[in-house]
């Protein structure tokens, strides 16, 4: 499974990319593969303040609905508005065009997230 080294990972299979003006969140390659073909995405409202570990979105494949958790506390600043019309983007580009939402983290340094190698280790154990 692809786990880019410039991202941080939650054990619940979300990734976080820290940027100058906030952070972007999506689901990992492992998560999209386990879900298989995504057919529906429910995204959070912009401006919503969330706690780390709170359910913020739902990704649904034919077989099941899966909760997506906020990897850090913060405020949702934007969502990927292209996803509802093309949810399969999550399968095709989980780390690129398939991103879910952007968040302004409360804390400058995220806590409790894993490096790519530590996350990859959770998948094999």
């Amino acid at each position, binding site marked *: 499974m692809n786990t880019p080294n410039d991202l941080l990972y939650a054990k619940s299979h979300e990734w976080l990319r820290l940027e100058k003006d906030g952070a972007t969140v999506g689901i990992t390659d492992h998560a999209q593969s386990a879900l298989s073909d995504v*057919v529906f995405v429910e995204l959070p409202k912009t401006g919503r303040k969330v706690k780390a570990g709170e359910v913020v979105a739902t990704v649904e494949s*034919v077989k099941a609905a899966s909760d997506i958790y906020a990897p850090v506390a913060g405020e949702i600043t934007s969502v990927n508005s292209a996803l509802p019309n093309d949810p399969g983007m999550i399968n095709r580009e989980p780390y690129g065009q398939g991103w879910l939402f952007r968040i302004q983290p409360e804390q400058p340094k995220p806590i409790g997230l894993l490096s790519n190698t530590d996350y990859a280790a959770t998948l094999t154990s």
Partner: protein
Amino acid sequence: MIPFAGWNLPVEYSGLLAEHKATRQEAGLFDISHMGQIRAQGKATLSCLESILANDPSKLKDGEGHYSFITNEQGGVIDDLLVYRLSPDDFFLVVNASRHTEILQLLKKHETPQVRFSGNPGTAAGMALQGPQAAAILNQVLQGVPIPPRNHIAKFTLFGASILIATTGYTGENGYEIFSDIPTGLKIWSALLEAGKPLGLLPCGLGSRDSLRLEAGLPLNGQDLSPEISPIEAGLGMFVDLNRARPFPGRAILEKQKKSGSPRISIGLQGQPGQPPPRHGYPVYQGHKQIGVITSGVPSPTLGHGIALALVTTPAPACGQDLEFEVRGRRVPAKVSPRRFLPKK
């Protein structure tokens, strides 16, 4: 792979959507070795089964099969099954994996020197070949030996072994269910895959089996059927035969429900594109009032919107009426529809 009634079963091979589409447009091959295969043999087989099954097995001619139920004293469904008559004193039953041991024990209580039941879990192979190309693929493997018509079963010899082929399925497509010993099953599986490859055949998992059966409006025991749900409530009263004298468990209650209506009834629901799909367990509302619950729901790969079976209180809303189901605390619109979501083939 996921655990399922004591078995490890693949949810998908190449991908649920690809497998679903292959079965609708070309063909799909499903491993159904987990399904319970029970043989009932002896001179008293028919009269014994008549006193257990909700559909009348005496209607079957040699080589014919039909859908039936084993009901409890309350008229609820212990299991739904296919019953095939091979000869007057030899019947073949295919039951759900989750009920296999329970049904075999229940049947064995009726054993006498004139009727015996056999077929322990894990002792036989089964596979379902389904889809528009199923006949062409099976014909290649059988090399021209004629195949029985729909809802029939026949014995064949393949790879030196005696096998059964039934013209039945659980996808809404034409197709076959093939039953054999395990080593022969492995050979048939490979032979079908090879013959089917140029025709677009894909091996299919539990995931597409569920989306295909729901599009065809076919019930799943444990969701749409249960010991607390009668066949009449599930909308399957046509498979409960009361035109015979013989009693069977729950008959009086089923007779009453058929005559004067059941307290609940299963309806079809169709969602809308772009809305969250209905799922098992979601509440169903008519205005402010909760009238029932979704027993099975899925985003239909063929239709592009959610479809569901829901068990609601009677009098049930008519086809075309607007209802809502609740997803994660919000209401989503749905229309009442026939329970078969795709046209019959």
